Each structure stands twice: as structure tokens, then as C-alpha cells.
């Protein structure tokens, strides 16, 4: 019988390092039967799951090395070398799956169960995740919490409603002061957004150098935090400062409400800098494709730059080519594109793959937040909460339901390049700009680096612990 054979093989190796007395023995026999859980055996299924849940819960709360149930132990135990060979995990043969990453394992299992419509398993896993998850715990607990919400919505087909509610809640608690504090604090501790700002500004300044009338079309939700440094550069670098017209296209509803305040500040700041300045906001668009030259106020004698900061991913996948064509029709001198490095687009018909990619990306993001902010930071909490909407939207809502542009089917830089190549040719970043970016990264905690892509690829990548996370590129017609 399978169960007993597993038991035998386990004991022969005898590698359990902590000989914490009888505790081990009493659980050990039961533990053996768990090796073959996945895929689930119909017999004793409930007891296995429930005792496993209890083990995990005990471990994560007691943080104890002696109860060495080394599969599920939260901290890495270097001595349990036989772990991976025993635990075949029914197809999830990931040799690096340590006890640390319980959340990702459970979440992936649950996603698969949902896809397979295995209702009992779904139920068990949702219950377990709910026991262990918390948006106020460590990274694993947080990821479990936010992804649990999405999985639940997917299982109960309530994604749309959940998303709407989350959006409403966020909008209610959103105001200029909180938004400003949040984004400025984030930029202070992490170069996630400032990387794109510095590179894009460098490319824009170089492309528009010498032009007397500038028109920058900013399609982003950065609350114009990119522009003060550009204004300063315009004011100080030349003897004759050009006239700058800034048109901001806002797609997220949340941002819309604070744009009035933002525009006042920007106008004041430009006056302070001594830069002739004009500011316009375009909001209320359902779809970027609705933009036209006239709507944007593009006139003949001005030099246009289009700046897309996390904007293209909000365009429905089928409409992306049209939007890029629309940019081309504006006749810009330069188009700068900044996007996060994740692929939710080519996997959009494969739930499990999409889920795994989503989990991978947000794991990196959450870990980055954890290490960049102080442990009790309120801003970190708010940023994590903002992710919840995106996660629910990607995983639990259908694409064909028409929503107001909050779809976020991200693509990788290489994919965006393929699209942009249809209408533009890529512009490299000059050495000066690259130096600026490197100097920027030096000012943050270690772990960040700049990566220049391989031959065929364009743009620059920001990497966090060697993992590319943000991509920036510049294009000309």
C-alpha cells in the first residue's frame, strides 16, 4: 500500500534532525501518510487535511524548531535534505519549495483546484488559507490574504462585484494629502517609480532640446511627480527657457479627484521655477483610443512628447495596436513607455498559468515593499491594499465585461517592443541618462540595479535582486 511504503522510506533515511523527544514520534506516523496527499486520496482525506492545517498553524504561530514537521515549517531548516525527494507533491515537483513558501504552494493548489472544479479541494484550501492569511502579517500571510480574496471571487464568480466595492472603498478614502504622502514616501524609499521618471525625463529632454514650444502628453497616474525635476532641468539648463504645455490624461478614477489640487501646485511650482507653463487635464475617458489630436490640444508649431507611465497595460489587449497608432498620428518627437515586467496578457486564457505569473509578480512586489519600508509603515499597507484591486481584476473578472479602464493586463518589455515596433523605431538612452539612472539607484538601499537588455531588445530594466521588475523605453516615429 502506498501509505506504508512511504513510511518505510522515510524512516530508512532517518534524517529528521530535531530529536525533540516523543513529539516527533507521535506525529510522525500520521505525517507519513501525508506524503501522498497530492493528488488527494479519497480515503482519510479530511483527517489528513485537517491535521496538516493544525500543524501549519502551530508552526507559524509558535515558530518552533523542535516540532520538526519540516515540510510546513515556516523557517528554513537546512538539515532536512530528504525533503524534496520524499515529497513528490503530485506533480508540483518544485525542488526549491521550502516550508517558507507555504502561501504560494497552497494558493497554486487552490488555483488548480478551481480550474479543475474540484469543489471539495477548493473548499479545504480556501478554509486553510483563510485560517492562515492576514493582511497584517508577514509577506506570506499578506499574499495569502489578497490572493485568497481573488480566488474566492473566482470560485464564487463574484469578482466583478468585489472589484466594484474595493474601488468604491478606495475612492472614499482617497484625498490629495493621503495620495501625496503615499506617493512621495514610496518614491523616497524605492526607485520603483523614480527609475522610469528619470530615464523618461532624460530621453524627453534630449529629444526636445532646443525646441521653444514643448507639449508633453502625460498618460499616467503618477500625480505629476515626474515633472518637478523636469521643470527644474528646463529652467536651469538653458539660457532661454522653453514654454511647456503639459496635458495629463488620467485613467484611474481615483486619481481624477485630486487632479485639481495637483494642477494648482504644478502651476505654482512652474511660476516659481520661472518656466512658462500651461496645464490641462483630460479625464473621464473610458478608453485611450478615444483620444484625438484635437482633444489633446496638439497644435502645429509645438514639439510633442508622449509619456506613458503604466498606461498601456490599462488598454484592452485587442485595442493596443490602435492606441499605438493613435500616438503615431500625433507626430511626436519622442514616446516614452514605462511598464512593469509581468505577463498577464498571453496567459489570459489559461487561468493557472496566469495565476502563477500573477503570484510571482506580486510576490516580488510585496517583498520589495517589505524591505523598503519600515515594518509598521502605513504607506506600505496602503500600497498593498491598492494591489488587491488589481489582483481581483486580473484573476476574477472576465475581460469582456466592460469596465472603466482598470483592466491591467501587463506585458513584458519584449512584448511591448513588438507592438511598438509596428509604428515606431526605438531610441537608445544616451550615456548621460544611463549615468543619471545609475546615480539615482545608488541613493537607495542595495538590491537595485540597472540592466541593459540583450541585443534584440530595447530599453532599460530596473532589477530588484536580479529580477527585472520595471522596463523603460524610448521611441521615435
Amino acid at each position: 500500500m502506498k501509505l506504508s511504503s512511504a513510511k518505510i522510506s522515510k524512516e530508512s533515511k532517518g534524517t529528521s534532525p530535531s530529536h525533540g523527544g516523543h513529539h516527533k514520534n507521535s506525529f510522525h506516523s500520521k505525517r507519513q501518510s501525508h506524503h501522498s496527499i497530492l493528488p488527494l486520496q479519497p480515503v482519510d482525506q479530511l483527517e489528513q487535511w485537517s491535521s496538516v492545517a493544525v500543524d501549519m498553524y502551530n508552526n507559524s504561530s509558535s515558530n518552533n524548531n523542535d516540532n520538526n514537521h519540516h515540510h510546513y515549517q515556516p523557517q528554513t531548516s537546512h538539515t532536512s535534505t530528504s525533503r524534496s525527494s520524499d515529497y513528490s507533491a503530485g506533480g508540483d515537483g518544485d525542488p526549491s519549495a521550502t516550508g517558507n513558501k507555504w502561501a504560494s504552494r497552497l494558493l497554486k493548489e487552490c488555483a488548480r483546484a478551481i480550474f479543475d472544479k474540484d469543489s471539495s479541494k477548493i473548499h479545504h484550501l480556501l478554509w486553510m488559507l483563510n485560517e492562515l492569511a492576514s493582511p497584517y502579517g508577514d509577506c506570506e500571510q499578506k499574499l495569502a490574504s489578497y490572493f485568497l480574496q481573488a480566488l474566492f471571487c473566482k470560485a464564487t464568480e463574484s469578482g466583478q462585484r468585489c472589484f466594484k466595492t474595493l474601488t468604491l472603498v478606495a475612492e472614499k478614502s482617497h484625498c490629495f494629502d493621503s495620495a501625496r504622502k503615499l506617493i512621495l514616501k514610496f518614491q523616497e524609499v524605492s526607485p520603483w517609480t523614480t527609475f522610469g521618471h528619470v530615464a523618461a525625463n532624460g530621453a524627453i529632454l534630449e529629444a526636445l532640446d532646443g525646441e521653444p514650444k514643448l507639449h508633453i502628453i502625460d498618460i499616467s497616474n503618477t500625480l505629476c511627480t515626474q515633472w518637478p525635476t523636469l521643470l527644474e532641468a528646463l529652467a536651469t539648463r538653458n539660457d532661454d527657457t522653453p514654454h511647456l504645455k503639459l496635458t495629463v490624461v488620467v485613467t484611474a478614477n481615483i486619481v481624477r479627484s485630486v487632479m485639481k489640487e495637483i494642477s494648482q501646485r504644478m502651476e505654482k511650482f512652474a511660476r516659481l521655477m520661472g518656466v512658462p507653463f500651461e496645464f490641462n487635464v483630460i479625464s473621464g475617458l473610458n478608453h485611450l483610443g478615444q483620444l484625438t489630436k484635437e482633444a489633446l490640444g496638439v497644435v502645429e508649431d509645438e514639439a510633442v512628447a508622449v509619456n506613458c507611465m503604466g498606461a498601456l497595460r490599462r488598454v484592452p489587449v485587442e485595442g493596443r495596436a490602435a492606441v499605438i497608432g493613435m500616438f503615431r498620428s500625433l507626430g511626436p518627437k519622442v514616446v516614452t513607455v514605462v511598464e512593469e515586467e509581468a505577463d498577464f496578457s498571453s496567459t489570459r486564457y489559461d487561468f493557472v498559468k496566469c495565476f502563477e505569473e500573477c503570484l510571482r509578480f506580486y510576490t516580488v512586489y510585496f517583498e520589495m515593499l517589505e524591505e523598503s519600508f519600515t515594518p509598521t509603515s502605513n504607506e506600505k499597507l496602503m500600497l498593498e491594499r491598492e494591489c488587491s484591486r488589481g489582483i481581483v481584476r486580473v484573476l476574477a473578472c472576465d475581460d469582456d465585461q466592460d469596465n472603466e479602464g482598470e483592466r491591467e493586463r501587463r506585458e513584458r518589455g519584449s512584448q511591448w517592443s513588438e507592438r511598438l515596433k509596428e509604428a515606431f523605431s526605438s531610441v537608445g538612452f544616451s550615456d548621460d541618462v544611463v549615468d543619471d539612472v545609475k546615480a539615482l539607484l545608488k541613493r537607495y538601499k542595495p538590491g537595485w540595479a540597472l540592466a541593459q537588455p540583450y541585443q534584440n531588445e530595447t530599453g532599460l530594466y530596473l532589477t530588484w535582486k536580479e529580477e527585472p521588475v520595471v522596463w523603460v523605453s524610448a521611441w521615435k516615429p
Partner: protein
Amino acid sequence: MPETMAEEPVSNGFMQNPVPGSNNPPVAKRKRNLPGTPGKFLCEICGKGFQRDQNLQLHRRGHNLPWKLKQRTTKEVRKRVYVCPEKTCVHHHPSRALGDLTGIKKHFYRKHGEKKWKCEKCSKRYAVQSDWKAHSKTCGTREYKCDCGTLFSRRDSFITHRAFCDALAEETARVNAASSMHSLATTNFSYQLMGNPLDTGMPQHFPSIFKTISSNDETIDQTRRGFSLWMGQAPQGHDSIGKSLQEIQQFGSLNSGSMYSDPLVSTSNPPASDYQLNWVFGNKVSSGNAEDQLTSTSLPLNNNVKENGTQLVSIPSLFSTQHQSQQTPSFSMSATALLQKAAQIGATSTDTSFLGSFGTKCNNSQIQDGSKYSDLYVSNTQTTTLGRDMENSANDISTLNQLQMYPAKR
């Protein structure tokens, strides 16, 4: 200056191109003006030597000479002066020649040369090595201080902060008060009037501000013209505010956890909220309005009276602090600054009426001051309802039918 003197071209030893990174091994610094090597220019009063004439002159000033002796005692010796070799440069002309060779070299590199030296920390570029060295010493050590009091070690974060800092409003008002008053006033007006934020909401204390600036002639015409709109509505505004203040007291905390539990409960919350908003704002907002007015309101939507005592206290105190912050500097601020301050108060509530600003400000104080408290409050409600509701809704879902095994566990 006689032409003959200035014909010296600058060519000798001038083209030593500094090689970037040639600092290793470091060159021994040459000490200037040591006892063994006094400078060419000597001070007749104390005998100190200087490398350059202008430094000597600066030094002599410090001796407080009576006027007669301020002139040079010795006759002017024919001196070499240097001109910039770049023909288009202003300093190419003898009348703008410089006194020493080093100076003209530096000028040439700075203005017409390639910037070969780069600071590592901030990537600023320099053409002259000594400039670069001097900068490197201070780079990163300099601290930038914003008017609001915050210190920054990085210039870029300082600039970005400054652009959005509240302290900016006062400064620009003071600086630009005289020159661009007219344009400021009109832009602010058009701005506010377009967005119609203040239809119902002008409280009574605003008119009192304008009494204090009656001494300022020119501004008054503009301000009076514009504010007559506002002042005219003040009486009605006051009434509606008084009423709405009472209504606010009935609403509970904004961040109530019940919002989070909504995904799991299939009640229709949104339509109910629209109805309530209608009631509070009068006829201003229509239901199902997807525009700015609704999205930016911050009044709570649910009727659960989770009475949060601190909320009530904060409303009048916020109101009065806004009031105070307007009153106290009013004597020193110009009319346009006051205008801007007034506009800010209206603007922070974005498009809604003044009531919206109550909610926004309240929420601010909750978030910023009592952040821990409100978060904890939310968290408790969230996790427990999530757990509980999961069980309930799990029961409701027809696809999951092996439920009878679980209820006892809880």
C-alpha cells in the same frame, strides 16, 4: 586699456587635456604662499603674498585704509592680460580680458570645453577638474531645507517635495504678489467658477477676511468683484451647513469594516448609498452619477451607527483650525495669498460642496493622526467577517456540497 598690452594670445601650455580618472595616484598638493614661496603680489601693509592681483586687492580691503591710500602706491606695471581664444566669446575682446592665465583657462573650459569630469553621486558634469573636486567634497553633504521644515539630502526628492508642499503657496504669493497679481487672481477665479464647487458651501467666516484687507486698493476691486458671488450666497450656505452638520453626526466612521465584508454578502449596497447622498446634498447629486462629484465624496455610505466619538470632535476643531490658519497670517499676507488659501480649502474637497471637504478633512485626521487606531478597527472587522461570512456563503453555494462535515469545526 592700450591695445598694445592685450595682444598676448593664450597658447602656451594651454592644451593640457585633463584625463578623467587620472587622479590615481593622487598628485601631491602644492601649497600656495608658504614662507618659502611667497606670491608675486605683496601687501605693503602686512607683507602677505598672493598669487593673484585680485586676491591681493580683496585682502587690502580688509585693512580699512583711508581713501587716499586705497589707490595703488606703485605705478602700474605693464601687465599681461589674457583673452579667450574663442572668437565668438565675449571675453575675446581685450576690453573683457582676464587678469591671469589660470582664470582664462578655466573660463575657456567651462564655457567652451567638453565636460569630462563627472560626479559619481549626482552625475553632474564639469569641464574643469578643480570644479569637479570642489563639488565632490560637498556633494551629498549639503542638505536642502524646505520651507515647511523638512530636510533632504537628495536634491531630486527635495524638488519633488517642494512642488507639492503646502508651504509653497505662501511663498509664491509673497514673491509674486506685486508683479503677477492680476493674472493670479483671474486664473484662480476662472478655475473655481468652472468647477462650481462653492454653490452651497460658503461659510460665514469668509467675509470677515476681506474686511481685513480693505487697505489694499488695487486688489480689492478684483477680489470684491469675484467674491461678491460667494458672499451673495453665504447666507443660504450657512443654513444648509448647519443642517448638514447635524446630519453628519448620525453617520459613523468612514473606514468601517463592513465595506470589506461586502464581497461576500450579496446585498445591494451601492444603490442605497446613492439615495443617502441625495438626501444629504439636496438636489445637487443625481443618483448613479459617475462623474467627479460622487467619486470624490468622502461621506460614509452606510447607515451603521458605529459611533466614533472622536469623529464628532474632530469636525468642529478642523473647521476652526482652518479658520485660524486663515485669520492669523491675514495681516501679513496679500490678497492673492488669501485667495489662494481660500481656494485651497474649497479645492481640497475637489468638486463637491463644502460638506465634502468636511469628510475629506475628517478622513485625513483619521488617517494621519489616528492611523493605527483606524487600521486596527478595520482589521478586526475585516478578518472576522471574512471568516464568518466564508462559512455562510460557502453554505449558500450550490456547487460545494460537502458542507455537513465542517460546521462543527468553528
